[in-house]
């Protein structure tokens, strides 16, 4: 790495943090910092071209149609009061447990994430409705933020997963095996998050018991019943199941690819909204839904565009290559190298989304770690898992930003404090995957035997 590259890196990182500090748009901060970096390394022509071509190249990607479609599906489901029905039912079922509504939200994220494979889409969809329900049930907004942001990361392990497929492409690992390998760790993560919710909610309640009369739902196992128990909307819950079956069923019965299935989910949600709304209000409810979905979509794509410019700068600088070379030069024990490589991913997640991170990091880490004797499939799941963790670790994480866009009153500080217990759960999961690799490799090798 040359002196100029080093200077550029320092300038860009400092500039980015400064822009964040003065409350500049995160997407534009990434863009501006990346732009300055490219000017330093390649001159202003290349920099202006990078920035001007980025919006089109970010969005002109058919596989990303899944983002607005699932956002639309989620918004329609909310406006048809389906999400409310689902949460009410899940909260009723899970109410004996502390944090029952948060657990309901977690199951929602897991189901949703299982279909989308997109962290950002999951968070954008779940954020508003989950937070309202969880807060209404008497839990803090911190728990809501934590469970939604962490819940978003589930989509990348539970198949179908675009990120796992991309790992397979850049490393030549078997894509089918990778997808199967994600199932075990995905379910383990759900379990770990559920335990986390129960622990956090229990501690919350010990500190500040829910004052009678403010809680709309029952959250505690004590004999105190809610003032007005939520009326169960079983039809609504039934419709929710229909949407899920339509979007996941089209995939599993071989009707549609996951990308296409998103349209079926949105279509079903639209029809259900029309069924549950009186005709004079049809136009206004559709209008409100699409405007909200389009706004969330634009915010997500502006972030991705900024990240794209930043990614270009990072790739150009060769910073990640230099980091890996430094690790190799140290000549350490295999598991120490593995640990270091995974830890190195976390700061990358400050700036990059899961897909960019895998595209840059996997080609570097895979050959080194496979050279140390680690299994390529297992490694893929581990790297993807840690890359997803990077999306929720402070000070900067894509999921937290998206959440904050949907729930502005939460504030990033509170969001990250809410996420911390889930990071602890993630660390436990990663440790288990390292100690018991069979959790990852059992399914793929069973299928090929």
């Amino acid at each position: 790495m040359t002196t100029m590259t080093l200077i550029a890196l320092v300038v860009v990182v400092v500039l980015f943090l400064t822009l964040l500090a003065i409350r500049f748009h995160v997407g534009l901060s990434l863009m501006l910092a990346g732009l300055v970096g490219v000017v330093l390394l390649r001159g202003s022509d290349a920099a202006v071209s990078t920035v001007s071509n980025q919006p089109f190249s970010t969005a002109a990607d058919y596989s990303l149609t899944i983002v607005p479609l699932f956002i639309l599906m989620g918004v329609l489901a909310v406006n048809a009061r389906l999400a409310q029905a689902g949460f009410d039912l899940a909260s009723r079922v899970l109410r004996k447990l502390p944090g029952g509504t948060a657990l309901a939200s977690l199951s929602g994220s897991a189901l949703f994430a299982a279909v989308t494979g997109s962290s950002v889409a999951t968070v954008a969809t779940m954020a508003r409705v989950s937070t309202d329900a969880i807060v209404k049930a008497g839990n803090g907004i911190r728990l809501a933020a934590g469970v939604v942001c962490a819940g978003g990361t589930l989509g990348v392990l539970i198949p179908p997963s675009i990120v796992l497929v991309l790992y397979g492409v850049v490393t030549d690992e078997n894509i089918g095996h990778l997808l199967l390998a994600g199932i075990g760790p995905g379910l383990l993560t759900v379990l770990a998050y559920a335990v986390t919710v129960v622990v956090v909610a229990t501690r919350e309640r010990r500190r500040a018991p829910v004052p009678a009369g403010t809680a709309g739902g029952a959250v505690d196992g004590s004999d105190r019943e809610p003032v007005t128990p939520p009326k169960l909307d079983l039809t609504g819950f039934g419709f929710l199941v229909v949407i899920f079956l339509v979007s996941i069923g089209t995939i599993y019965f071989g009707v549609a690819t996951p990308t296409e299935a998103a349209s079926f989910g949105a279509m079903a949600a639209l029809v259900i909204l029309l069924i549950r709304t009186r005709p004079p209000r049809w136009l206004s409810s559709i209008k409100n839904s699409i405007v909200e979905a389009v706004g969330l979509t634009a915010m997500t794509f502006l972030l991705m565009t900024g990240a794209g410019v930043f990614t270009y700068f990072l790739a150009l600088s060769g910073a990640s290559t230099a980091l890996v070379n430094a690790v190799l030069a140290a000549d350490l024990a295999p598991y120490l190298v593995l640990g270091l490589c995974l830890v190195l991913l976390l700061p990358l997640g400050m700036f990059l989304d899961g897909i960019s991170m895998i595209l840059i990091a996997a080609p570097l880490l895979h050959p080194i770690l496979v050279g140390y004797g680690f299994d390529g499939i297992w490694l893929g799941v581990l790297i993807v898992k840690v890359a997803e963790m990077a999306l929720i670790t402070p000070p900067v994480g894509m999921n937290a930003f998206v959440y904050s866009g949907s729930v502005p009153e939460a504030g990033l500080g509170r969001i990250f404090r809410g996420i911390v217990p889930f990071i602890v759960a993630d660390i436990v999961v990663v440790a288990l995957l390292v100690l018991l690799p069979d959790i990852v490799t059992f399914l793929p090798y069973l299928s090929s035997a």
Partner: protein
Amino acid sequence: MSAGRLSRVARVSATVFGLTAGVFLLALVLLTVADVGGRSLWNQSVLGTVDISTLLLVAIAFLGLASAELDGRHVSVAMLEERLSRKRRVVLSAVRAVLLAGIGLLLVWGLADVLFSAVDRGETTNDILRLPTWPAKLVLFVSFAAFFVAAVAKEIQELRALRRNQDQEANR
């Protein structure tokens, strides 16, 4: 143009653009459902679904930028600023307005260049329909222009509100 007039223009165009994007989004849903339905039932896809969808996505992705800005959906980190004095916040707001205008001019100018180049070269998509890309690039140009107008107008309003409060404080 006054900031108030600017923000009225921004508001109206944001709404129009947002609704247009919404219509495109519904079109994307119908197109995909028709394509998959045709393929499953009659082994007959809608030719060029990927071409059309990709260009629709470019429009859907950014047409809502201005309305997202006016609705306060864009993400920023407010932790530090909350602790500053009003005077310093006025300075920061001014810095943000200047930065927004700067990057806005650069990007809009660059997007215009990208648009003209697409027209010049007769740029098309690479799949079967070979659709011209310039309409999508025109939408990008317009979307970002509206977004930066909205963002600058909003920042100027905030700056004014901050300064009004500052004056009131000084007179108290």
